[in-house]
């Protein structure tokens, strides 16, 4: 009979580990983060706390009463039941979300620009009904500007041909178009009453994508001093698809969460969401240990609220369309307890 402690792998599948195996996974996860992100390891207190959390057989794990954090959501609702306003109401009334976010099913700023009037109308109605902060979110999604979907040469096709200057020029051109679109949508939705704008999955197409997000934030902040601006990252470090782009004198390629957060704060963001990737072949304990080790310098030095991305495939939560609650709650609790997060 297998008497190991039931726990999860990074793909969500159930496994059983002995306490010694859990401890080994946690220490290996910390070591993997130290090696990859060049950060300090977690302290022994934090490692022991992780062993307690993952050594439990309980279905659910939670923070202490009084230690609750704000839960924000990117894109509320499935858009399968009722209307998009109903989605926001379900999240507010039944899931008790601390903030809600309306979204267009294409979830990129470029396509939203063409339907902004319709988005404004729905948001205007939502603002009558919703009490909690209600924002609007989409992705910068720089790839949308390249052929065949857009007018700009495709750097993913140019790079394998060795056309480096052409690929860089294409990305620089796309940045300017994305900034215009994001600022246009933000302005339109601010007119309709949003409390915040969310630039979600920033950096998905690399350093140029992150630069577009930062430049757009700067524009939005200058225009709307009281508007909430949220950036959620696409992955743990910024890919150098261009390689030479800078924001405020800082090279963007290869930035880890602490440096990402500093630039986001400088641009005018009010909530920053680091995203740490999950390794599906390792246990959730390993992934959570690695996540916390990478995110800790960002949280320790933050000057703005940090909402760690915790969901399908990031923040230690298994890469599965229905992440098991036992794993999600352990990952979330560990992050709040050890990182002293402002939210998730």
């Amino acid at each position, binding site marked *: 009979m297998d008497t190991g402690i039931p726990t999860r792998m990074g793909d969500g599948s159930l496994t059983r580990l002995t306490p010694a195996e859990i401890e080994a996974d946690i220490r290996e996860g910390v070591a993997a983060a130290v090696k990859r992100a060049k950060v300090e390891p977690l302290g022994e207190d934090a490692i022991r706390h992780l062993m307690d959390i993952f050594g439990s057989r309980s279905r659910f794990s939670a923070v202490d009463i009084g230690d609750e954090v704000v839960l924000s959501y990117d894109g509320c609702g499935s858009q399968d039941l009722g209307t998009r306003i109903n989605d926001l109401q379900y999240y507010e009334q039944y899931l008790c979300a601390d903030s809600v976010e309306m979204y267009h099913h294409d979830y990129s700023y470029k396509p939203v620009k063409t339907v902004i009037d319709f988005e404004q109308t729905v948001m205007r109605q939502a603002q009558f009904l919703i009490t909690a902060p209600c924002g609007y979110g989409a992705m910068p999604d720089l790839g949308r500007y390249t052929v065949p979907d857009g007018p700009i040469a495709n750097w993913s096709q140019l790079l394998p041909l060795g056309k480096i200057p052409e690929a860089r020029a294409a990305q620089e051109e796309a940045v300017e178009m994305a900034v215009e679109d994001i600022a246009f949508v933000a302005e339109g939705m601010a007119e309709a009453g949003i409390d915040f704008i969310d630039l979600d999955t920033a950096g998905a197409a690399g350093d140029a994508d992150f630069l577009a997000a930062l430049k757009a934030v700067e524009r939005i902040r200058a225009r709307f001093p009281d508007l909430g601006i949220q950036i959620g990252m696409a992955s743990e470090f910024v890919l150098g698809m261009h390689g030479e782009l800078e924001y405020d004198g800082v090279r963007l390629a290869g930035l880890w969460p602490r440096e990402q957060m500093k630039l986001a704060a400088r641009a005018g963001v009010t909530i920053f969401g680091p995203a740490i990737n999950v390794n599906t072949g390792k246990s959730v304990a390993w992934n959570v240990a690695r996540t916390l080790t990478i995110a800790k310098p960002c949280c320790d030095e933050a000057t703005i*609220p940090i909402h760690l991305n915790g969901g399908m495939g990031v923040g230690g939560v298994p890469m599965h369309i229905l992440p098991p609650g036992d794993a999600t709650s352990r990952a979330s609790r560990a992050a709040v307890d050890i990182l002293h997060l402002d939210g998730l």
Partner: protein
Amino acid sequence: MGGIRTAGDLVARMQITRGMRLPQAKKHVADRLGVSVMDLSDPVVMLDARKEHGLGAALESGEITGIDEPIGLEAKFHIAELLGVPINSVERFRRLTAPRG
């Protein structure tokens, strides 16, 4: 934190609008409500506090929030006043309903 069942939406609003970190945001909301920080995530304490200040709550067929109590945009007028922050939809409502001509 529990959203409109507790004070989660109010604390979130301070983070969103003012970029306050969690302890600072919780303290600001607790001070304005006259409750303890611990109370902010307690639905029993917070339902009374929300009703007293007109901050809106869950609806539940009128059993939790009656017809004479503010919800949605109505409640956000009180929330803006209580927290001392501008709320975009409230400002917009004031602007659009102001006398013209």
